[in-house]
């Protein structure tokens, strides 16, 4: 059944179907609608869960950590400053290998304070040890929630589902609803063999020494690497069950083309339009969307890109004083593989700056003109407005 749903509502519906026993959150725009919907479900007994209004995002993620450690499926969501306030616990959860699932409604990070979409929040915790999925549409957001639980619980790693604030969370789009029974059969009941219980009085979260900390981290890294196959498997299994398939990457005419756009999240929509336009004009263009950013799907990307001669990375985050994050990691991957092709890195859409077809087309034209001077371009930047410290 197809329905016109706000992105936040679509996510909430999916969470409801996964039947978490504990939900804890703290309001922050643009995430708030998600937990408001969930609160309503609990109030209407459409979802039987403990809904806990935490005193902060830090508390919320900690409550979720405790709930999962105690053997319950749980959920939380946040954004921007809220996500950064969670940071300490995000690392801790990953280090303890707890299968937590959360949504990040991507939003810019202050100062200056800005509630609109970019990826600087989730990107800044990319090293926390969480699997990160970036979705393009409300449909994908809904579907990926179910997959996120599948992935987390199969590889005992936390999953962060990143969806663009406002651009998805507050946008009404037609969504094919999931049906409860199929979700049930897709997602087994939650069991956690390290759960806290008097029947197995073990210790979680013990300290380590120089002799073994490295080994802990290495084991975690290996699990991260392996998880790529589980992300793929989850997508395939989902396709079998629901008829919509997802993987590490999402490709659009990327086979054997000269220029490939690489981007994340909802920006892919505009890129698809631009690709159509350019191809109609006879240009050899395609696009690849990085659905799974952590673990970084280097091999899959190489397979798609090595035949092309030009890559344009459009990303909504960057490492201040260094470069675009995806572009940098892509360059590294290509160099490791001995593939030499030009990677044009563009920072775009920061703080909700609209990424329009025109902007993307200009970037394409520039890239044809040759490599840009800087490590990366700032798409559509108005330099006069940024001079003198703004």
């Amino acid at each position, binding site marked *: 059944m197809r329905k016109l749903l706000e992105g936040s509502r679509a996510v909430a519906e999916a969470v409801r179907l996964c039947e978490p026993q504990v939900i804890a959150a703290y309001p922050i725009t643009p995430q708030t609608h998600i937990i408001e919907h969930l609160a309503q479900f609990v109030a209407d007994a459409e979802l039987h869960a403990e809904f806990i209004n935490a005193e902060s995002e830090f508390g919320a993620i900690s409550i979720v950590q405790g709930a999962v450690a105690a053997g319950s499926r749980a959920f939380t969501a946040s954004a921007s400053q809220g996500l950064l306030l969670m940071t300490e616990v995000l690392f801790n959860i990953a280090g303890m290998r707890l299968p937590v699932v959360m949504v990040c409604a991507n939003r810019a990070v202050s100062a200056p304070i800005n509630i609109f979409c970019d990826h600087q929040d989730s990107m800044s915790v990319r090293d926390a040890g969480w699997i990160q999925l970036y979705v393009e549409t409300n449909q994908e957001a809904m579907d990926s929630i179910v997959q996120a639980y599948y992935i987390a619980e199969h590889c005992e790693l936390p999953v962060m589902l990143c969806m663009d604030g406002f651009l998805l969370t507050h946008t009404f789009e037609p969504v094919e609803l999931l049906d409860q029974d199929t979700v049930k059969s897709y997602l087994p009941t939650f069991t956690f063999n390290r759960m806290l219980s008097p029947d197995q009085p*073990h210790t979680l979260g013990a300290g380590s020494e120089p002799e073994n900390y490295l080994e802990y981290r290495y084991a975690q890294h290996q699990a991260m690497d392996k998880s790529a196959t589980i992300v793929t498997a989850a997508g395939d299994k989902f396709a079998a069950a629901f008829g919509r398939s997802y993987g590490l990457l999402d490709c659009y005419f990327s086979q054997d083309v000269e220029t490939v756009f690489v981007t994340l999240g909802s920006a892919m929509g505009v890129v698809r339009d631009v690709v159509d336009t350019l191809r109609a004009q006879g240009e050899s263009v395609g696009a690849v969307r990085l659905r799974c950013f952590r673990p970084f799907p280097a091999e899959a990307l190489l397979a798609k890109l090595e035949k092309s001669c030009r890559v344009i990375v459009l990303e909504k985050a960057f490492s201040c004083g260094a470069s675009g994050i995806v572009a940098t990691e892509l360059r590294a991957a290509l160099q490791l593989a001995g593939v030499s092709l030009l990677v044009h890195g563009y920072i775009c859409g920061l703080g909700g700056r609209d990424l329009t077809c025109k902007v993307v087309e200009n970037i394409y034209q520039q890239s044809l003109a040759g490599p840009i001077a800087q490590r990366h371009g700032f798409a559509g930047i108005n330099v006069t407005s940024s001079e003198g410290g703004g």
Partner: protein
Amino acid sequence: MSKLSIDPGSSVTNLTGSWRTQTPVMKNKWPPCGQTCPASEDIQAWLALASESQWQAAWRKLTARNPLPAVMGRVCYHPCESACNRKHLDSAVNIHAMEYFLGEMALANGWQHQKLNDNENNATGGKKIAVVGAGPAGLSCAYQLALRGYAVTIFDAAEEAGGTLWSGIPEYRLPKNILKQEIEAILKLGVTLVLNCTIGDIHGNAPHPHKRISTESLITDYDAIFLGIGALKPRLFQNSQYTDQHVLTGMDFLRRVNQGEELSLPKRVAVIGGGNTAIDVARCLRRLDCDVTVVCAQDPHGAHLAHPGAEIPASELEVTQAQREGVEIIYRTAVSRLVYSGKHLNGVETCRVDKIHDRHGNFNPVLFEGTETFIAANLVIFAIGQEVDWCGLERLIDSGLSKVFIGGDAAGNPRFAATAIGSGFENAMSIIDYLSGQKPYFDTHKKAEVTYKNLNLSYYAQSHRQTENAGEKENSGFVDTISLNESTACKEALRCLSCGVCFYCDNCWHFCPDAAIIKQADNYTIDYDFCKGCGICAQECPCGYIDMHTVLHE
């Protein structure tokens, strides 16, 4: 390896005992009460039982060392109480009254002593022991031997058993029937008592009606002989004739009073001497309505903390009670001569004492000339000590026979009944050792003492003696002893601090931060694998049962 969950208690592979630089050691100690008890009673132990109202068990624990609690509960000068650590917290435990109470209770309920091993002949090979003298030493020795199954016969020249307890202690302090009953209880163990019977080879003046046994036959008929003949020969004042009208000895006076003889006494009497006998005599005289002046060569109690030898030897309690009864005591004074007018005694001339002891430490007062003072008295009673009378027993002692043992006053001990009882016990043990060739087991009292500095007083509640004079009452100006009742006795027993003896309060077990003290059903063990030696268990042990040793103890 990187385990995401750690097994419970896996820390026990980390033996933190290696951190230790000092080591707690749990060891029962000998409380000062028992340490100072001349009869070596395990006072703490029987108080503990009493505190749980286990009266009979307490009495048995007490009588393991002293078969005469009702007697000693009256006549003992209880040094145990002066030693009691409790006095540092509030006031000493009233041990004297507790002993009295238990003794009374035993008599009231007719509790009987029980032999330690019933198949006596196997244990003792039917060995026979003669005990000469039915005083406290003899009774104690006979009792201990009989308890262990030996055949004992007691011989005494007097017509009543008890020795000085019978002849030397006035009725008001020790009713005769009490003494009789406790002696009865001893005899019930199968001890034979032969009275009116002199041992020895002397001829002539022995009291009547009379039996005599030669040392010869004693030596042949018995496997061991214990001489507890006391010290009955009074020391005499130089060249004065003892006539009933003017001059008596303390022992003679007390014996005759105890026999119930009606003495015609003048109003004013001087008693010479500072021992318990002198005080007994003085207190008797007060009860016979005489005005009494005690002339004593020593200083009062507490005047010479350095050498108590210079203080009046009678027990402090006796002295104070006597004074409360109106006895006048003149200290550091000695008699230089008796003052007669014709045949009639007017009084004594006394002098201040310069030195009390000569350079050999013997009691030999030197007087200040010119300090002569006259004390009016129509009767003088000398209680200046007794000596042992070996007359007739020479062969037993001189021949150095290994089967002959000597105890009590006769062995030169301090002249106290409690000391005699202790001496009787020790001799009994030696006799058994001699007869059986093996040392009998008994709790040796040679243990470290625990002072109140070893205690943690914060764990004890303040609680005062039932009454400061529990065990005493004023009776028409005279002090008599009374008993506690069960509830007051229980309260009093609970006041015992159990110095140096663990009473399972669990403090060490609660407080050990390292789970290194393991509680067992009836004690604690220290797990030295983990003990870090912090010393909290020792610090918080209320009774000083735990010590810290700086030497590692593995």
